[in-house]
């Protein structure tokens, strides 16, 4: 994490012989409107944090608030641990970044933000439906959708390798500046291509671990079959036909993944692509951004495009981030004011530019920024990243399950674990029985 301080702060610490008491005198000077501390997600794209820092400082100057920013990585579940610890201890930052199911999971500790959301929706237009679903489990807004960190984990393919070994021209399927011509891009095509590239020694680098990248990919595949482990009402639907079809397909596909995919974390697929060994990964453009710096010959062959279609639709793995205010925060009004500032069109544009097109704003009117059309090399590589023609549905892994159960399915990586077990030889019914018992465990209160 990197911390940015605006004022001098001396803090004293007493030794541990007595229970320590924190004393933090600081020079207030011109900062008379209070303090605000925030923990933001540490961006994968090098240098992207600076845009957020600049925007926060700009607001702080205007509002005369003393700010303290921490950038918390999601690697090693650090962000999740921080959220849990602060929720338990009921103390910590005022604002935190909450990914995917987390706002719903901490609904009791979050400050409702209906007031600012009403204003923002009026100014910027509607919010993506799945984002609204995640932030309003009980009918009121728990958190503000964040531009920073919200990402689609669609395929990022090697143009040359896909053409040579799989016979697929991804640039023709998803031409830059034009609507996609991707009717032939289905799950079956994906399976054949995976097999071909695997034989050629350039396997598809899709993880089967329990971190977000792996879980999001599995979630989209499952939804493409209409498979849900738990339905919207909370009934366990593990032993249903769509789940069987999805599990069967994904286990067959997984045989063409690298042998240690079950142990992959969020950085493994990036490394797979940058090292030149992969023909396709499912990742937002951060891998391509690092390849630009460290392996330019790989970067100029990368093309980000849409997901293949399944029997029940074309679903793209989506991971939204939210900015949430704890209800034990001592400066809620300042926090709300800051979040409004960060959700302005100009702010969003700056963040998207600084992240090289990685960040996806959730407001409908924001998807026309120039960044995506202009990122290069190769030119147009990110054009289809923000789903400009809405030809795929943004899916949230583990939905439509009720949030408290979904967050467990998600963080425990149940879908990928099922796939690994079945792929390694366990009979399907045994895997389903195991998954069912796990889900019943998630229902505990």
């Amino acid at each position, binding site marked *: *994490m*990197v*911390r940015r301080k605006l004022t001098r702060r001396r803090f004293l*610490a*007493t*030794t*541990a*012989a007595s*229970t*320590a*008491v*924190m004393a933090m005198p600081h020079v207030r000077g011109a900062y008379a409107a209070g303090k605000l501390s925030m*923990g933001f997600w*540490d*961006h*994968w*794209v*090098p240098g992207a944090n600076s845009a957020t820092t600049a925007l926060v400082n700009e607001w702080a100057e205007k509002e005369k608030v003393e700010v303290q920013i*921490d*950038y*918390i*990585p999601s*690697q*090693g579940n*650090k962000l999740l*641990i*921080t959220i849990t*610890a*602060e929720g*338990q*201890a*009921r*103390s*910590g930052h005022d604002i935190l970044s909450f990914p995917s199911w987390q706002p719903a999971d901490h609904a009791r500790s979050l400050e409702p933000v209906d007031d600012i959301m009403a204003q923002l929706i009026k100014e910027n237009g509607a919010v993506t439906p799945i984002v609204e679903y995640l932030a309003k489990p009980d009918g009121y807004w728990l958190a503000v959708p964040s531009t920073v960190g919200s990402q689609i984990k669609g395929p990022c393919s090697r143009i040359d390798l896909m053409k040579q070994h799989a016979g697929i021209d991804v640039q023709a399927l998803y031409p830059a500046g034009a609507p996609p011509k991707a009717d032939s891009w289905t799950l079956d095509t994906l399976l054949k291509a995976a097999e071909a590239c695997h034989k050629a020694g350039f396997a598809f680098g899709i993880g089967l671990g329990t971190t977000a990248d792996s879980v999001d990919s599995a979630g989209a595949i499952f939804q493409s079959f209409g498979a849900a482990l738990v339905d919207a009402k909370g009934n366990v639907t593990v032993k249903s036909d769509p789940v069987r079809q999805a599990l069967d397909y994904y286990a067959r596909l997984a045989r063409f993944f690298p042998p240690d995919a079950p142990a992959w974390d*969020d*950085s493994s697929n*990036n*490394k797979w692509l*940058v*090292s030149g060994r992969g023909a396709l990964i499912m*990742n937002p453009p*951060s*891998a391509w951004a*690092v390849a630009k*710096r*460290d*392996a330019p010959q790989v970067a100029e062959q990368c093309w980000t495009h849409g997901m293949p279609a399944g029997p029940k639709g074309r679903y793209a793995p989506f991971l939204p981030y939210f900015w949430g205010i704890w209800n034990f925060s001592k400066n809620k009004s300042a926090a709300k004011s800051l979040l409004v500032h960060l959700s302005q069109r100009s702010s969003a544009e700056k963040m998207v530019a600084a992240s090289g097109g990685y960040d996806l704003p959730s407001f409908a009117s924001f998807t026309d920024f120039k960044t995506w059309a202009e990122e290069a090399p190769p030119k147009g590589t990110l054009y289809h990243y923000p789903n400009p023609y809405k030809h795929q549905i943004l899916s949230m892994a583990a939905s439509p399950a009720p949030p408290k159960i979904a967050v467990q399915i998600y963080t425990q990586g149940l879908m990928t674990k099922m796939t690994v077990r079945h792929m390694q030889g366990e009979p399907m019914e045994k895997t389903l029985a195991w998954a069912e018992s796990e889900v019943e465990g998630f229902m505990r209160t």
Partner: protein
Amino acid sequence: MSTAAITAAAGSARGRRYGSISRDRRWALRWSYFFLVLFAIFFLMPPVYMLITSLKTSQEISAATDPWWVHHPTLGNYIELLTSPTYLTFFRNSALVSVIVVAITMLISVPAAFALSRMRFWGSAALATGVFLTYLIPETLLFIPLFKMFALINEYLDIQLIDRWWVLLVLYPTLTVPFCTWIMIGYFASIPKELDEAALMDGANYRQILTRVFIPVALPGLIAATIFAFTVSWAQFLYPLAFTTSADQLVLPVGIVTSLIKGDVFNWGQIMTGALLGAAPPLIIYAFLMDYYIAGLTAGATKG
């Protein structure tokens, strides 16, 4: 050598054939050195690899041309880390915590060990065994209830204990004090009681016996205990991971593992540099005070 001589004498007495003494011994030596070299390679390979990787740029690492040699060495990683305020904060936190914990540990263990080894009072035997037993309740059992305890204290007494580095000053002694006390009891017990009596004859009270007689004699043990306490504090991972989350409160092990590993692609050159620099203080202390360190370890078992 006497063994070999007697063996040879015995051998010739029984009519068995032995090779010449020096040849046997030389072969034994050669095999010993051969295997020692193998084991040394096994044990030293990761630190050496850390050093090699720390001298590489991230381009060279990504290219993966030769992981075992540096072709374009650079000190860039070292410079970046040593000028990075975050990393220096980690270092400072670790140093502060370790030094203070060593002081606290010594202040608690030495008097306690003195009392337990020299003064017989009701329950002293049970206490000595009890001290040893607490070493067997692992931190991996205690971190969850401690977490909840500190969270409750935070909520009801408004004393910030979670996510502050000084909470480690409270927690680390639980790991260092029992073993240090045990070491010191061993050392103190081996000091002959005649020294006590001589000092008492000269009219010293208990405090003077402790400071003038015991501590100088048991100095090797004290140094060993100090080194042990420092090394354990420096290397701690679980407690800081569970109890500190903000960047400026982290100590080195947790800081490197959770914060340096940023971005989708690890910047492994920097991580290895960070890890090497983080391992440096214990290694340096070890290099200079190796004999005390080893004496301390073995004393726990042989003298205890």
